[in-house]
């Protein structure tokens, strides 16, 4: 297929999005990420029954926290796709990057950045 997606994205692999923690998302924002998205399996098709559903709830929690802090909640998103949907993966990556570019750089200034 040789699909390309933006180089702005750093992929972190997990066995299941159920492993995603609120702190993983918050720490990414804290450390200066402009946006974070979780790409889980299609709803109803989690190998661990409800890992992706739990991930969505955690994403929602972080969105709420960011809104409370005056930061655009759209910087954190949850997507669902299957491992067979390569084209969809690239599409989501482009969508997310476009959205973050529209929002601009994170307002979380990291004065200790390496």
């Amino acid at each position, binding site marked *: 297929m040789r699909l390309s997606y933006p180089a702005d994205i750093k992929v972190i692999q997990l066995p299941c999005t159920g492993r995603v923690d*609120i*702190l993983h998302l*918050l*720490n990414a*924002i*804290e450390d200066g990420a402009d946006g974070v998205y979780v790409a889980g399996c299609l709803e109803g098709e989690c190998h661990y029954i409800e890992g992706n559903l739990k991930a969505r709830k955690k994403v929602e929690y972080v969105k709420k*926290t*960011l809104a*409370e*802090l*005056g*930061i655009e909640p759209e910087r954190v998103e949850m997507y669902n796709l299957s491992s067979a949907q390569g084209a969809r993966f690239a599409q989501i990556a482009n969508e997310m990057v476009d959205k973050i570019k529209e929002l601009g750089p994170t*307002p*979380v*200034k*990291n*004065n*200790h950045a390496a």
Partner: protein
Amino acid sequence: MIVADRKSLKEILAMVEDNKKILIAGCKGCVTVCNVGGLKEVEILASSLKIARKKQGNDIDIDIKVLERQCDTEYVAEISDIVGDYDAVLSLACGVGPQFLSEMYKDQIFYPGVNTTFFGGATRHGVWEERCAGCGTCAIHNFGGLCPIARCAKSLMNGPCGGSSKGICEVNKDTECIWDAIVKKKMEAGKLEDLIGVKGIKNWRTARDGGPRRSIREELVQGNI
């Protein structure tokens, strides 16, 4: 357990506005069980506050420490070596915690990060309800094991008021009329007559009305057991 709700980020940020380095002190007791002041919540709050302050361009250093309990001096003493290193300490324990901390470390500032609400339990995941008012004279055996002091809006002792409708309290549509539940339970058990006797006037001196309370267990004070 003692149930609490975390204060809003806005309120907490206002408290620590002038501080550059703080300690967030969690508690492994009740507030861990009610998911408001345990390790996870302490870490989430620390990250949230750091994000907010970075956004303001006014970074804050935050360390975290979760004490076994903040309502026992032996555990409160565990931070004696580090407590002076901070501009302030934000406690996520119930209202007892920051007071025990304040009493032990008189030169430090302690902020309460939670609003302590009631004695209760979880009726389902994420939902806690009040069950005890700590009135100091438990009599729930007279009411089918259900407490009208804590669970009736008026703490009535001799039956429901006129505001009870279809098992719901007039104060809040989500609040059951505990007297309705007490009567139903007694009827189902065929023991409605248990409720006939008039309960005398309650002595409220054992409750908060008698002023701050103290419980002394002489055998423990003397170290006999």
